[in-house]
């Protein structure tokens, strides 16, 4: 298994700055022709439930390790130059950023594919759990069947 040297995985409560994260993928050598990124946001409504707060819990240690492993898997499959993932935990509100994944490569095909691959795995394998709070009370979010089938296609 390859190890991608320029990669980082962070889990924290604070918000993040997408421009700074994207700059962090650049080596300064101008080898990168392409950066694909994904940002996930808290939606106001999910399956018609009006969400006022989202609580995100994770398994410290395993989260970082499993995402790092996913990034290394991606670097095995596509010629990547850099990749990072940031995931927030704690209490979030609608409109807040939850997750960011960015991938740099010489060409766009690898950047897009790896970014989507990492997100699919992050959604289905990384140990995060979301609880929605709202007028309906509290509810642990359940798995989208769609997410499972997307991850299985790789």
């Amino acid at each position, binding site marked *: 298994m390859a190890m991608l040297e320029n990669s980082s995985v962070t889990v924290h409560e604070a918000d993040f700055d997408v421009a700074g994260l994207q700059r962090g993928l650049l080596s300064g050598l101008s080898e990168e022709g392409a950066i694909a990124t994904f940002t996930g946001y808290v939606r106001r409504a999910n399956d018609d439930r009006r969400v006022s707060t989202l609580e995100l819990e994770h398994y410290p240690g*395993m989260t970082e390790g499993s995402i790092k492993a996913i990034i290394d898997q991606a670097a095995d499959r596509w010629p990547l130059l850099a990749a990072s993932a940031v*995931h927030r935990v704690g209490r979030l509100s609608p409109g807040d950023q939850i997750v960011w994944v960015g991938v740099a490569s010489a060409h766009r095909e690898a950047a897009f594919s790896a970014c989507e691959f990492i997100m699919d795995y992050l959604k289905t394998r990384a140990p995060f759990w979301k609880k929605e709070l709202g007028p309906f009370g509290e509810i642990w979010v359940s798995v989208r069947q769609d997410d499972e089938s997307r991850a299985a296609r790789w």
Partner: protein
Amino acid sequence: MLKILFFARIREELSCSGLELQWPGSRLDLYALQEQLCVEYGESWRNVLTQENMIRAVNQQVVTDNCELNDGDEIAFFPPVTGG
């Protein structure tokens, strides 16, 4: 010593985020450990820990079958993940 962790809905249903057990000094596998917890903490724990979609991890690696445990292992029980 064994470190046992519970996350999310499982943590709430057990009202327990984790516990530590003395290493029994003999062989122990994952299913035997789970049975030991069910016996010690009663029927409510058995109902939770035997849920069909329970995910189990040993030393932060998901395991889908029974496996041998070792002194110092970290065992986690959690529901299907919903990150991103």
